[in-house]
């Protein structure tokens, strides 16, 4: 029987029409956008067209877009680019982040703290992993350089009240960044009237190619480049443009915009089917993340008495590709910091499972999965 892919939050299959749009930019229109000649002009035209289209789809008047290699690079560029533009001898916090960030933010913040002596502060979150506005405002002084809060969490799916957070930052003149890598694949986002200063996005979460993304920032927000080179992207991000990737990014985002509402509803039906069924059929199981304010395709749980890694292996062998909270391929399971931050105890946090659906997931796939999961969990519980 065919294997069933239920890990769309990790990555998605490239849309075949997107691939068709990308192909000419490998062998035919292979020019370097920085070149003066016509080959270069065609490539440059494609890059600029993509830039404009993506900004338009995000309703991002007054913003500019820096193409990057993906969400992680965008997050690095935002954090390092803003924090390093400030003096390092102040008494204020350089950076405030939530405790439920993707490692691209969390580890970058750690690195800024450890290697560059920056002061980092972490917010509190509630039991769903949502930032509390009161907690934010109590820490927010005008001298803070940057606040970064994940838009929608990759592990537990919770959507943060990003605009409220951004508004509090803006009131105090503090820049606000959000990692919207998961969110942008599902939610219709409009930046024009928002208080978001910087916004990270990656194409492979919405049926685009891997290795391409963007940092979108308000005009006038200055960042220090961390990839010096030939002056591409206004000198902010040196390096020859990934032209086929950028074209694919654009086309995937356009297609997402056309199909977003339909996909959203379809995903949400399957998600709710999974959540309802799992909680009903498997004892000692808890939903992680917010019950309703969550990504439409995202179901995540912790199972008492099961190791998430074992569960993922057993399910993979049964033909279902899912993920555990702490993605671990080298056999070092540690409880996920996100789950610990929302108050889940260590032993329970090791029993995490994430199921994320997408465009190719059928109701039959989900039904088959739900028929196998309870048996798999009870087998693993028995074997202890």
């Amino acid at each position: 029987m065919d294997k069933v892919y239920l890990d769309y939050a990790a990555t998605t299959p490239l849309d075949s029409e997107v691939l068709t749009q990308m192909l000419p930019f490998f062998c035919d229109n292979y020019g370097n956008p920085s070149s003066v000649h016509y080959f270069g002009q065609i490539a440059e035209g494609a890059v600029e067209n993509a830039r404009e289209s993506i900004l338009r789809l995000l309703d991002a008047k007054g913003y500019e877009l820096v193409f990057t290699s993906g969400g992680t690079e965008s997050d690095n560029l935002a954090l390092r680019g803003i924090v390093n533009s400030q003096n390092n001898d102040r008494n204020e916090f350089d950076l405030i982040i939530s405790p439920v960030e993707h490692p691209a933010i969390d580890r970058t913040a750690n690195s800024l703290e450890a290697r560059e002596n920056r002061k980092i502060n972490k917010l509190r979150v509630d039991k769903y992993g949502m930032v509390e506005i009161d907690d934010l405002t109590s820490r927010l002084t005008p001298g803070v350089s940057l606040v970064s809060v994940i838009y929608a969490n990759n592990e537990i799916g919770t959507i943060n009240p990003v605009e409220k957070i951004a508004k509090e930052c803006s009131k105090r003149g503090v820049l606000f960044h959000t990692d919207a890598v998961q969110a942008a694949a599902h939610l219709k986002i409009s930046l024009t009237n928002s208080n978001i200063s910087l916004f990270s996005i990656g194409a492979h979460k919405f049926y685009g190619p891997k290795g391409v993304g963007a940092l979108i920032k308000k005009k006038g927000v200055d960042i220090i480049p961390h990839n010096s080179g030939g002056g591409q992207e206004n000198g902010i991000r040196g390096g020859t443009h990934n032209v086929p990737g950028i074209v694919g990014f654009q086309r995937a985002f356009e297609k997402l915009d056309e199909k977003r509402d339909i996909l959203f509803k379809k995903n949400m039906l399957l998600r709710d089917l999974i959540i309802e069924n799992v909680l009903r059929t498997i004892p000692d199981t808890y939903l992680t993340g917010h019950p309703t304010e969550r990504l439409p395709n995202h179901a995540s749980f912790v199972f008492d008495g099961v190791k998430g890694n074992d569960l993922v292996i057993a399910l993979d062998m049964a033909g279902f590709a899912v993920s555990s909270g702490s993605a671990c391929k080298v056999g070092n399971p540690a409880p996920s910091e996100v789950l610990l931050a929302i108050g889940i105890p260590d032993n329970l946090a090791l029993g995490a499972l994430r199921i994320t659906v997408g465009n190719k997931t059928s109701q039959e796939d989900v039904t088959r999965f739900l028929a196998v999961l309870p048996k798999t969990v009870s087998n693993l519980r028995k074997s202890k």
Partner: protein
Amino acid sequence: MVECKNVVVAMSGGVDSSVAAALMVENGYNVTGLMLKLWTSECDHEANACCTPESISLAREVATQLGFPFYVIDTKEVFKQVVVDHFIQASQQGRTPNPCYLCNQKIRWGFLLDKATTLGADFLVTGHYGQIKKDTENHFHLFKANDPKKDQSYVLSGLNQEQLSKTLFPLGKYLKSEVRDLADSYSLRVARKPDSQDLCFVGSHGYRSFLNSIGSETAINGLIRNQDGVVLGEHTGLTNFTIGQRKGILSGFKDPLYVLKKDMDKNELIVGGSDLLNFTGITFSEANWIAGTVPDLNQNFDIKVRYKANPVNVRIVAIDEKSFRADFEYPIRDATPGQIAVIYLNNEVIGSGIIETVLCEGI
């Protein structure tokens, strides 16, 4: 049509387990690769320490090439408790333990076999050189491998009927050279990877250095005496020595000196000439009889007292249910408490136990 059996192959990133996996794939089994992430004192990149990221990626590469899924299983906690702590403790008692025997018995055919069974596997497959045969009464027998130089029946001798019934050793009938050729024929990049030599968990500097690094209590200097009690010099710590050892004792004597005995109470090393290394027998405990019951002891068995020892003819008598005495046909020189005594009848492994005492006439 034969039902497609599910097997878990224990992968190490080395040539043997890789070829074992390839043979299973070729024979139509539904293969899943698992690698145990074992405890290590230093997880460095030295070749042949089977925990390293390099070994993991080699095994992953083999799995991808042969087209089966591969997973790494964290085993550090149980491996540390069951194997490493025992190794340290036994060493501190002056014994020379065999962690591979224990690891096979309790980790590979304990923790890993359980995991494989839970995941739906019918058999656990390893790249060990040994052979299992089932008789007409559904009893399982363990035999030496066809390649006498690579035979690993010594470290497999702790297995029981239940464990053997769920195990396949596809390499048992091959010579190592044939296995390397098979690896070539499957275009496995690990074909010419050198064999692993030392214990997997002690790191790149060997097990004595490992014991010293963990602050083994007995690694303190003491006296070296001969069998008459005459002081000949000083030793660097009893854990640095094993019975029959010649290296690192004293030089300048007319005849080479060998470790005869370790006196743990006095922290003294008793040494003497090779003529005094005459062990006439051993006692062993925690006996494991492959058949599940004590065999008819009124037979001429062979015994191996070390992995690389030559077998010697032996008579065995029971001391109690789990302890036995073995008297060698002629004295041998390298029997050591803590090592495994493995009993053979021709090429078949009959059982094994842990050497408790060595019997000798000299001292």
